[in-house]
């Protein structure tokens, strides 16, 4: 009776089924524990963990330089850039646009920098459904190697004020 005090001596040994269940459950938990450590080494895609502090002004000027050096066109006023493989590339989050449009080469590795110029945003890369939280003041550095050509849509999945649903962008892998 869970709502009444138990009998005086309630620290009794476990029954047979209970022992079995607890053992199986504990083993499963340990298995999961080692599995997740293992997956950290085996998995091809891990959480990015590199970031550094940066002011929004600094980040903006880095990104502006990057766009100026690599711009190859424009779509609806948003610059399109085609950076050299192996270099640092910059994506800017701001209310309410991901900019610039990045043109990348397939099977080449880049260091993608992402940071916000105003509030927090959510970088959502579709259709592969990769999602990262983006802060202002933090330069998030993500090593990426696109392995499939095509158009990738970007949208924002962290509420970033009233125009949140207008915030989109694009990565093109060629």
């Amino acid at each position, binding site marked *: 009776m869970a709502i009444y*005090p138990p009998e005086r001596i309630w620290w009794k040994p476990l*029954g047979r089924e209970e022992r079995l269940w*607890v053992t199986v459950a504990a083993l499963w*938990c340990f298995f999961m524990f080692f599995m997740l450590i293992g997956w950290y080494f085996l998995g091809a895609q891990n959480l990015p963990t590199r970031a550094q502090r940066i002011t929004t002004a600094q980040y903006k000027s880095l990104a502006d330089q990057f766009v100026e050096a690599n711009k190859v066109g424009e779509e609806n006023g948003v610059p399109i850039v085609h950076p050299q493989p192996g270099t640092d590339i910059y994506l800017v989050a701001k209310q309410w*646009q991901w900019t610039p449009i990045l043109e990348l080469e397939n099977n080449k590795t880049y260091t993608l920098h992402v940071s916000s110029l105003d509030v927090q945003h959510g970088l959502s890369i579709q259709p592969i*459904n990769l999602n990262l939280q983006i802060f202002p003041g933090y330069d998030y550095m993500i090593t990426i190697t696109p392995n499939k050509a095509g158009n990738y849509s970007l949208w924002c999945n962290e509420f970033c004020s009233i125009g*949140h649903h207008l915030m989109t962008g*694009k990565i093109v892998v060629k």
Partner: protein
Amino acid sequence: MAAIALPNTFSGTRSVFRVCPVTTFKVDLAAERLIIVNAVTAIVALLLGGIYALLIGLTRWPDVHLLSAPWFYRLLTAHGMNMLVFWMVFFEVAGLYFGGNALLNARLVGVKLAWVAYALMLGGAILVNVIIMMGRADVMFSAYPPLKADPLFYVGYILFAVGAILACCIFLATLVMAKVEGRYEGSMPLAVFGLLTAAIIALFTLLSGAVALIPTLLWSLGIGNVDPGAYRVTFWGFGHSAQQVNLSAMIAIWYTLATLTVGAKPVNEKLSRFAFFLYILFINLGSMHHLLTDPGLGTAAKFFNTSYAMYLAVLGSLIHAFSIPAAIETAMRKKGYNKGLFGWLLNAPWKEPGFSALMFSLFIFGFIGGPTGVVLGAGQLSLLAHNTWRITGHFHATVVGGTTLAFMGFAYYVLPLVFRRPLFAKKIAQWQPWVYGIGLIILSISMTLAGTLGAPRRHWDVTFSNVTIPVQVQPLMNLMLTFSGIGAVIAATGGAMFIIVAVGSLLFSPKRDPKALSPLEA
């Protein structure tokens, strides 16, 4: 039925008790009044949150798309606050007073302070609601800086948290005093032990909330700065740990409902108590899984939190997942329902709303909410799910299908006891857990699937009309969003049924045998 006044050991005061004719517990009338106001306030918050749920649910149904963008975001903020914070915590405070006083036959320590706690919480909740409705806090309940709300929004949030901290302290003091005054024999009941677990986690949780929100309040007034990363660490120390409070309270209520509905007895008190203890030690680490995709946390932090200690809390849950159904089965078999493997389950009192609420809650939490949570806590998978509707699908199966439904089942027992009125519209109550449960199963599964296809959370327009750079949406996503709209309507209907029963019991049911129950003043 007589009321009795017992002198209190350490103060000159006397508490007035009545003996509950149904349960024979001695109930401190001061505690009873607080249980009633906290529970009724909780239900008002649930009503508000439920109306908003229907409206935002219909907005996210693509073919209906009911609200304008500003009102969608505004009501989503209000839905999160009223449901996750106000409904849950007011109800939990009522639960604490019920567990600490009625179940232990104990008196409430610090009656005046308990009213102060209530006033702080109520004032905070009203302030937050008003500011949101004025359009000055369209920031969601998580209020991530540098998105800024009106300072009064944070003031309301903080007042509420301070009131809740006070209520937890009163509960703890009540437990101590009950022991000192010998109001119960031996160890405290398992349900109270579970509530104690919840209160201990709550103290840590609410303090963490204060650490997150006080600097944010100052920043909104132009004093100092708030680091977005540090805010998220402390905010989720509140926001997620609050879910562990809900979890512990829910499990305490599961044990209680199993006892009340089929007379189940915990199979092994030691094991169940150990499982609660695991929560206190390990469950707070779960907060970190909100931060796995954040910049600013290093490899070691992400690595540790994606795996290791979380599983010890999971072990606690797996133990309860065995103990509660086993207790129900044992009790049913004792009553002679022994036919076959599942005869005990088929013959269970499914028409009893407390029982069907318990079973739906167990099922939805145990098979949808819990497992999805463990999955989402893994780093690599967090990358695929962060901020998508998968998250929303997950927690509507934990805190709604699990906790809220369990609380509703509990209310069907507690409200008649404390109102001293029979349940209103029993027929509606009988079906309510089914409607709510089925609606939520549809809602949370379709939210999860939509999120798997990329559907973002907190988003007004997944058709992305009007954007500068057009995007491609997976075609199946629309279908899933439609299903979730249907689920939302069914669940909202179930929510309304609960409100009708609860409010109707207070307003329309005749007071039970008023003369026999009148307290004997001493």
